[in-house]
């Protein structure tokens, strides 16, 4: 059952990663205005995300505005959006598939090899989702870094990494770790082929009950 435990661990890691991917997609803090350099104390902090840009006033108010035009957006934001949405969708499908394929569920129990393959497919989808997130976040981070060190950028308009990027990195790591745990629980083909009763659902109480009942009722009249 250690295998099953590893699967469960992988599933919950990947689930956490998926939630993190959703959170970092929705968060507006992909980059935030930098206070490095002359230590300018400003009354407004600027944030930019994939969907909106925000300004946080020192009075505690936050003003946000969705980006107006889809087509006028910069290419890297559009591709980051696409990658993140694809990662969320892949994670969703992976979640459903690995629930079906994991050993602790009773769905499709009659065919352990197929079940194992489904679990591996779910894990692979989680791996892909993590890779997509990693690509999007790292690309965005590279661009932010380039812009920061570009000498033609004015000091006041510099941006640095926001919290959403770190959430994205952590989520990608979790999803990839969980996906690889799900993937490395390969079924053993020889053992499941040589097993005498492949259709037996295991030593659960529910499965054995009718057998006991039959034997008891057969035994009854015979014994008398």
């Amino acid at each position: 059952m250690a295998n099953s435990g590893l699967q469960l661990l992988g599933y919950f890691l990947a689930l956490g990663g998926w939630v993190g991917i959703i959170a970092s997609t929705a968060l507006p803090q992909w980059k935030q205005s930098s206070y490095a350099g002359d230590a300018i104390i400003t009354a407004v902090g600027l944030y930019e995300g994939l969907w909106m840009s925000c300004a946080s006033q020192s009075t505690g108010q936050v003003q946000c505005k969705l980006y107006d035009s889809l087509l006028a957006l910069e290419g890297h934001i559009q591709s980051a959006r696409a990658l993140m949405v694809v990662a969320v969708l892949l994670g969703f499908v992976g979640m459903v598939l690995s629930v079906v394929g994991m050993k602790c569920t009773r769905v499709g129990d009659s065919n352990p090899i197929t079940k194992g393959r489904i679990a591996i497919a779910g894990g692979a989808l989680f791996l892909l989702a993590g890779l997509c997130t990693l690509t999007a976040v790292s690309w965005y981070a590279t661009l932010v870094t380039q812009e920061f060190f570009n000498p033609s950028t004015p000091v006041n308009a510099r941006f640095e990494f926001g919290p959403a990027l770190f959430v994205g990195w952590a989520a990608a790591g979790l999803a990839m770790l969980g996906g690889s745990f799900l993937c490395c629980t390969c079924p053993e083909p020889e053992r499941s082929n040589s097993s005498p009763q492949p259709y037996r659902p295991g030593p659960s109480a529910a499965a054995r009950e009718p057998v006991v009942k039959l034997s008891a009722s057969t035994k009854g009249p015979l014994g008398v």
Partner: protein
Amino acid sequence: MEYLYSIRLCHPDTPAVGEEREGKDQDFQDPRVPEAQKTSSIPATCVAPGLPAAHVSLADRLLAKMRDRLQYVACFFAFFSAGFLVVATWTDCWMVNADDSLEVSTKCRGLWWECVTNAFDGIRTCDEYDSIYAEHSLKLVVTRALMITADILAGFGFITLLLGLDCVKFLPAEPYIKARMCFVAGTTLLTAGAPGIIGSVWYAVDVYVERSSLIFHNIFLGIQYKFGWSCWLGMAGSLGCFVAGAVLTCCLYLLKDIGPERNYPYSMRKAYSTTAISMAKSYAAPRTQTARMYAVDTRV
């Protein structure tokens, strides 16, 4: 499998629906052997299990299938109502300005912050309420507390229900644990629905009373509020919790004695502990057609 049902129908120690719950303690103490001897006294009604038995087994199977489906229905409801409750707690439209106020923007007030969305340029300005120690209205504080309680209870109920589903292998050696976990999940969901509905209805009633008293006294402050979609979500989530809890507790409780699996939970446990298990093993093998017929014939 039908022959199993018809045999079970005639078995003298088949407990009735009410009998089993009351007599489970006696079941524990009864040894297995006398029970087998008791079979000599077959009730007269069971001598010929012909057509009625077949009908009952069909209805039995249908009801058992329905019970399994009901679990998933309850799971669906529990998932969405827990989600609704959480979303309602953390979104900002508990109060929204009514149409008759002189505003060009949508003003939403939530439990934690209020936001104004400008209708023209789409800029959304949010302002958090003052610190938690500042002066807040009783309505706000109580609704916050009730909604968080409801969130936690609903989440706990949902997780318990997930572990208690028939298709999840959790504690497989423990008989009857699934029904118990479903029952616990149902009770938790019912308990979660209560603070949720109290909180959201209280908030809604309070907003309504505020507004109608303003109108009654003919005071016009320039902005009037009605309750918004978060409040509706809270109510819907609590009602969904009630539905899921009712399905899990009442329906599964009424149907729990039907079907092949749940009839002998206590005698099963006994069978594990005594020699009956070896008996079961030795009689499991010859389940051929003739053995089947023999089993039925010796009954009649």
